[in-house]
Every structure is written in structure tokens, then in C-alpha cells.
């Protein structure tokens, strides 16, 4: 198709292309402190409390700050709070000492009033953070540097919930009519969606949602000035395009690297890849309690049989999934929680080789010597290679005569199935932002009632266990509490509520000369970037 009339265009294209390449080059050399950062999706909003969502928090962490931070090893660090602890007088009260000399981007000083305002704003619906602060009764400023948070009961782990709750300026919020976080039903855009006034190391310069967000270093920030002075943040949805942009030198850091491209990128000159475990595990679960399964040809509910569940755990080949599907980029594990999380043990983690013979026996014992059919629901755009993992399982279960129909679909169709108990068998990934097992129990193990069990798609219900889980929330003796956690895990593992696959491993790819470590919650900070 490239013939005469087209030649001119082609040549013009060449010229423009050369110019564009020149442009790219100059922007690289002229300002080495600019980082062009690409990832799969954009922050949904710049409002600090509106959405409890990973990419939103990641970007906002550069503009806003939280009271406590999370280090790469999962431990808590000082941020706007220099000290914290449970009050010695009242075990229901958390005491925070607030950092002095902190300025907002508009030049005003941050005060304890701003902290009180922000925590109140975060816990008031329609804030997306409200659930994390459900146990808070009152937030008060005691003096210029101290804030008290009164809980409805003992809450030994509350501080873990604060790592994504940002502090904003009360005066600014009031001046701009955003005293509460934006409401979807309100019908108009809140000022805070595209405008910010935080205390963070970077100021928002330009915000073009889903296109480009530009941040510049905030000179009056309380901490040391970061090496990166400007951040250009670009979402690139398509995996291939994202990788291409890095290969062509149009971006410096790619956060969501497709697992299959990691090895190749590592071998590419001028590009390096860092990797580290993510605080997220991937598992299968199933309806264990219904009398029969909607998508199955079996009489009764095969998943209700412990033998079937055991047979499935013997059929899954986690190492094969790791080696082939995940290209080595995962941590195979039988434990339905990431190793960062309090309550994780080596025993839970360990698993043996698949044993199809034994699995077959168990199937026969359970009354399914010829197997059964069932549908597996799977997201195809949520976790790393989610659909491929499900596909691999289909093959593995086929060997013990479980015929699995795979129903892979987008997340907004997948998750309601779990929420509405419309799936017999599903894949789910779970991150544990509090780094404590209680979070897992609350959402995945506890019977579905009130705020409990919203992602308990197994319909598992054990009143005894529920009681124990509820007790965890208020236990202040951590040793005793850890023992109870272990007890609960024993029961959960015994029941095989989860068929865990692995923990996700994160990989960031970047231009050589840039140093950035993997953040366990996938929230990299450009302040930590150094240049060679």
C-alpha cells in the first residue's frame, strides 16, 4: 500500500519522527531530576479521603501525608506523627504526637486542628476511608502537638489503619466547600477532585485525569529535599504499550510490568528491573455449605465434602503455576495470607508435591469417582495473569475428573458474584493493608453479617470461630492475641476454606541509573528514588 502518493507522507513522518526522537533525547538529558512514571491506571481522584483505592493512594502519598507511614518491610514509620501509642489512662484512646513546623503547599502551617478535621472527614461518609475508622468515637486536639482518638472499645491495631489516611488543610477545605469528601450522588464536581493542598513532598502542578499528572517538589517540605524534583505521571492501560514506552525511552519507570516481560526487560541494555513480594495473596474458594451447586451436574454439593477439598489441594501444582504461568515471579504458598502479615507461619506456607493418585482416591471416597462439573468464575483484569492461573487450574482439576467451565470476565462483573453469593467456585486476591490476620478473618472467614464476611464467598459459617474473630478486635495482650490468631488459622486450614495459590511478586522496571525499591503495598514513593 505504500506507493507514490504515500511516499511524501512517509518521508514527512520520518522527519517528524526524527524530531520526536530528538525531543525525547533532550528531555532526558536536560533535566535528569524529572521522572516520567507510567502505570496501568490513574488515581481516581485527588481528594484524600474519597476513594480507598491503591493507585489513588499511591499518587496522593506524594501530595498528602499520613500520620504514620509504612516502610518497605511492612513496619510503621513516623510521618506527620512523631509518636503514637495507646493512652496509659484509657485503653480506648490512641494518642498521637503531631510533627511541628509542617507547612501546607499554600504556605499555611499545619496544626492539630487540621489533623482532627482530616480524621473526622475521613471517617464521615461518604468518605471511602470510613470503614477503616468505624471504631472511632471522637477525635480531639489536646494541645498544640497532641491528638487523641477515642475508640468504641480497645483497638490495639487501629494505628495500622492510618497508613492511607491523609491530613489536609481545614481552612482550605472550608474555603473551597469540601468539608466532607465528595459525594457521587451530589451531581457536581468537588474542588478537591482536581485541586490539592497537602503537606507532602510534591505539589500538584497539572492534573489531566487519565492523561497526565505533573508534580513538582515542594520546597518548604519538612523533610530533606528528594532527588526527584519533577514527576510526570502517565497511565498506560495496555501492557504492550507500557513496555514499549519504556523500551523506546518515553518513560523512565514502569510500575506494572507484565510478568512475561520481566526477564526480557532485565536483559535489555539500559533497563533494570527490581522486584519484591507484594502484600497480596491469590487463592481459590468455593461454596462449602449450600445443598447443591447451580453450575454443577453433581448431586449435592461436592465442595461440602472435606475429601473433595483435600483432593483439590493435592491436584493443584503450585510450582508449575509459578514456573510457567508466573514465569517464576510469584511465591507459591498454601497459606492464605502474605508473609508480611501477623499470623503467618512457615507451616501454613508449606505444601507438598501434587499427588494425583491420592487425590483420585479421595474423590472416590467422597462419592465422586467419576468426578463432577462446575463453573469457575475468574476476573481477567484484576490480578497478575489471573485468567491464566484459572486456566491452569482447569487443566489440573481435569486430571481428577473435575470438569471446570471457566468463566473469565472483567472485575466489575466478577466481584458482584462473590458479593451476591452467585458463584460456586471463584478466584480472589486479598491484600492486607493492616498487616494483621484479623483483617483476613473479618472479611473472608467470619459469617456474613453486618460489616463482617463481605467477601466470604464460601458461605462458611462457624459461630464459635466468629466469636473468636470478634474477640481479636479488642484484645490488647498481643501475645494472647497471637495465640488466638494461630488457633483460628488452625481451624481455617483444617477446613480448607481457601485453596491458596501464591503471593504476588511486584516488579518495577526503570531506566538504568534510577534506583527505586519495591513497596509491599505497591505504593512506590518517588522521594525514595536516587540516581547513580
Amino acid at each position, binding site marked *: 500500500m505504500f506507493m507514490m502518493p504515500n511516499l511524501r507522507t512517509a518521508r514527512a513522518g520520518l522527519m517528524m519522527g526524527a524530531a520526536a526522537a530528538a525531543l525525547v533525547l533532550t528531555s532526558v538529558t536536560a533535566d535528569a531530576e524529572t521522572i516520567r512514571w507510567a502505570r496501568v491506571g490513574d488515581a481516581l*481522584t485527588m481528594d484524600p479521603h474519597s476513594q*480507598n*483505592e491503591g493507585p489513588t493512594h499511591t499518587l496522593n502519598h506524594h501530595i498528602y501525608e499520613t500520620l504514620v507511614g509504612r516502610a518497605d518491610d511492612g513496619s510503621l514509620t513516623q510521618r506527620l506523627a512523631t509518636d503514637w501509642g495507646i493512652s496509659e489512662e484509657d485503653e480506648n484512646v490512641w494518642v498521637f504526637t503531631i510533627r511541628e513546623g509542617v507547612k501546607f503547599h499554600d504556605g499555611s502551617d499545619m496544626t492539630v486542628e487540621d489533623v482532627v478535621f482530616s480524621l473526622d472527614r475521613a471517617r464521615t461518609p461518604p468518605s471511602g476511608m470510613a470503614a477503616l475508622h468505624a471504631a472511632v468515637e471522637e477525635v480531639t486536639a489536646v494541645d498544640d502537638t497532641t491528638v487523641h482518638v477515642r475508640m468504641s472499645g480497645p483497638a490495639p491495631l487501629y494505628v495500622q489503619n492510618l497508613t492511607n489516611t491523609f491530613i489536609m488543610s481545614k481552612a482550605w477545605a472550608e474555603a473551597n466547600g469540601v468539608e466532607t469528601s465528595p459525594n457521587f450522588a451530589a451531581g457536581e464536581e468537588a474542588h478537591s477532585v482536581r485541586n490539592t493542598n497537602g503537606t507532602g513532598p510534591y505539589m500538584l502542578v497539572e492534573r489531566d485525569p*487519565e492523561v497526565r499528572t505533573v508534580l513538582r517538589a515542594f520546597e518548604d517540605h519538612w523533610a530533606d529535599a528528594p532527588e526527584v524534583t519533577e514527576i510526570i505521571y502517565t497511565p498506560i492501560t495496555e501492557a504492550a504499550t507500557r513496555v514499549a514506552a519504556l523500551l523506546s525511552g518515553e518513560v523512565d519507570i514502569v510500575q506494572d510490568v507484565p510478568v512475561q516481560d520481566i526477564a526480557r526487560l532485565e536483559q535489555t541494555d539500559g533497563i533494570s528491573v527490581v522486584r519484591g513480594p507484594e502484600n497480596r495473596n491469590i487463592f481459590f474458594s468455593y461454596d462449602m455449605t449450600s445443598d447443591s451447586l447451580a453450575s454443577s451436574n453433581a448431586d449435592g454439593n461436592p465442595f461440602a465434602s472435606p475429601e473433595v477439598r483435600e483432593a483439590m489441594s493435592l491436584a493443584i501444582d503450585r510450582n508449575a503455576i509459578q514456573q510457567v504461568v508466573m514465569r517464576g515471579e510469584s511465591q507459591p504458598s498454601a497459606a492464605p495470607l502474605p508473609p508480611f502479615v501477623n499470623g503467618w507461619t512457615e507451616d501454613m506456607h508449606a505444601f507438598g508435591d501434587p499427588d494425583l493418585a491420592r487425590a483420585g482416591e479421595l474423590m472416590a471416597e467422597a462419592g465422586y469417582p467419576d468426578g463432577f462439573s462446575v463453573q469457575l468464575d475468574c476476573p481477567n483484569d484484576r490480578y497478575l495473569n489471573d485468567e491464566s492461573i484459572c486456566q491452569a487450574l482447569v487443566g489440573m482439576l481435569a486430571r481428577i475428573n473435575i470438569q471446570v467451565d471457566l468463566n473469565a470476565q*472483567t472485575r466489575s462483573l466478577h*466481584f458482584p458474584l462473590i458479593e451476591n453469593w452467585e458463584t460456586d467456585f471463584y478466584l480472589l486476591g486479598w491484600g492486607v493493608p493492616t498487616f494483621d490476620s484479623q483483617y483476613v478473618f473479618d472479611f473472608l472467614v467470619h459469617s456474613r453479617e453486618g460489616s463482617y464476611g463481605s467477601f466470604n464467598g464460601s458461605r462458611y459459617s462457624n459461630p464459635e470461630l466468629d466469636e473468636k474473630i470478634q474477640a481479636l478486635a479488642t484484645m490488647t495482650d498481643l501475645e494472647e492475641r497471637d495465640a488466638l490468631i494461630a488457633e483460628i488459622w488452625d481451624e481455617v486450614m483444617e477446613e480448607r476454606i481457601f485453596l491458596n495459590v501464591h503471593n504476588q511478586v511486584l516488579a518495577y522496571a526503570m531506566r538504568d541509573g534510577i534506583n527505586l525499591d519495591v513497596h509491599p503495598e505497591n505504593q512506590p514513593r518517588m522521594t525514595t528514588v536516587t540516581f547513580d
Partner: protein
Amino acid sequence: MLTVSAVYAGSDMLAFILRRLVQSVIVMLTVALVAFALFRFVGDPIASMVGQETTLAERAEMREALGLNDPFVVQFAKFVTRAATGDFGISYRLQQPVMELILSRLPATLELALVSGVAAFVFGVGFGVYTALNRGNWLSGTIMTASLIGVSLPTFLIGVLLIWVFAVELQWLPSFGRGETVYIGNWWRTGLLTESGRASLILPAITLGLYQMTLIMRLVRAEMLEVLRTDYIKFARARGLSNRAVHFGHALKNTLVPVITITGLQLGSIIAFSIITETVFQWPGVGALFINSVRFVDVPVMAAYLMLIALVFVVINLIVDLLYYAVDPRLRVDRANTRH
């Protein structure tokens, strides 16, 4: 063309336009209705709007607050009455007014669609005429065969391959985005005025236009061959008109009459097809906005997008009909006849 005959066809034309306008409103309403009906199948917006900690009760509350539990008719009525005033509500996902969001993304899509549409038309007609007039020579054979490659691979693959070759391997052209943009007036952001903006346009425009070009080219060729066999072309030759006059004055014009219909409709499908191209090239247009909205079940954006597409189509259809009307005098009589 619209000189003398347009004068006495004027009143006829006015009635025709009026009738089409009424029909257009009905079309828009139907689209809105169908669009609304299908939103219930796209997924649950709440799932994308809240974090994993949100309780079921809170989710139910949100659903109620957003009016998602209202009867279908009520939701639809609300939507239509507000949409009539240009108010499409606020995006669930980006929390911006939908109208503003779409208007800010529209220039990107229109520039892309227009550039690739014009390119597809120019090259399509050019190649089509060339291959029709030079049947049997090796170059037209090559063009005919090569052009088929454009319709023999999926758009997304062509896009990715172009990125691979021209952005990654050769590093001639950008792989994503629009490059530098500048404002024309208040809200029209253009990439056409900057070097990097134009460079960024090339690959997406090829990806988007290739298929349309092939279709137009093949259509033009087929039509032109038919026309060249007609008596009036023979008669034109017999009158000693130059090849140029015969080919481009007579044959081309007659060829273009049916081609215009298809091409006009193609322009619309270019805008629809830009969904894929925009996704592959991270082109910040309404197509990418729409597909992201589908993933997040951002109903207000989806609804507004569909209405926009409907509007574009209605307008294009109207223009195509008017063009047809202007170009083909036979239809004028036809219309007049059907009226009585």
C-alpha cells in the same frame, strides 16, 4: 451542483430536513433507552467504586443513594430530563461532570478520526481509481493484495506491531499519547499544531484508517469498474472527451455517489472503532474514556458517550443524505414522488 435545481428543490429539502430532525430525536431517545437497558448487564458500579473494606450494608446504601435501585422507567426518565439540559451527571469514577469530561476528550478523538478518515478517503479513492483504471497491471495487483493485509489482521495487533516497529525498534515515532498539545480557544486542545503532536498522530491514524481505506478503495474500484462499462461513459468517449474528463469528470463522480453513503457511515464507525486504537495507543479520547468507563461501570459516562455517538451518527447520516440529495439529481424526483 446546488445551484438552479436547489432553488426549486428548496421547499422539498426543508421538509426533508425537518422530517429527518424529528426522526433524529426518536433515534436519540431509542439509543438512550437501549443504552440504559444494557447498563444493567455491564456490571455493578459499586464494586468499582468502593474499597474491599466497605460493608454490604454500605454498598446497599450507596446503591440507593445513586438511584440504582429505582425502577428502570424512573431512572430512564430522570436521565432523559437531565440529559435534555446537557446535564449527564457526574462520573462515578473520576468525579468530574460528565459533560466536561467528554468535551475535554472529544477533540482528541475528533482529530484522530478526522485525520484517519480523510487519509482513508483520499488514499482509498486514489488507490481505488488507480486500480480500476489500471486493471491488470502489476502495481494495481500489488496494491489490491497489499491493502488486504489491512483487513486481515485485527486492529489491536496492527497497532501493537506498529508500536513495536516504529516506536521500539526504529524509535521514529512515539508509542503513546498525544504529545504536546495547545489550546485553540477555551476548550479545544489540539495536537495538530505541535511537532510532537503530529508525530504522535501518525501511528494511531494509520491503525485506525487502514481498514477504512481498504474498504473505500475496494468499493471505489468495484463501483468505478461498473461505471466505466456504462453507456454514458462509452458515449462520453465517443464524443471525444479526454481520458481525464471521462475518468475524473464523469466516471469518478458517478462512482462516488454510492461510495459517499458507505464512507459517511464509515466515518461514524471510525469514531466507534477508535475505542480499540485509543486503548492501544493510550490516546486520551472519548473511546478510551468509554472503555475505561465500561471496566469501572461508570454509567453516567457510558450513557453520555452513547448519546454522543448517537448524535454524531445522526448528524453524519443527515449530512450523507443531504450530500446524496445534492449529488444525485435522480433522488430529488424520487423524494418528491414518495411525498405524494
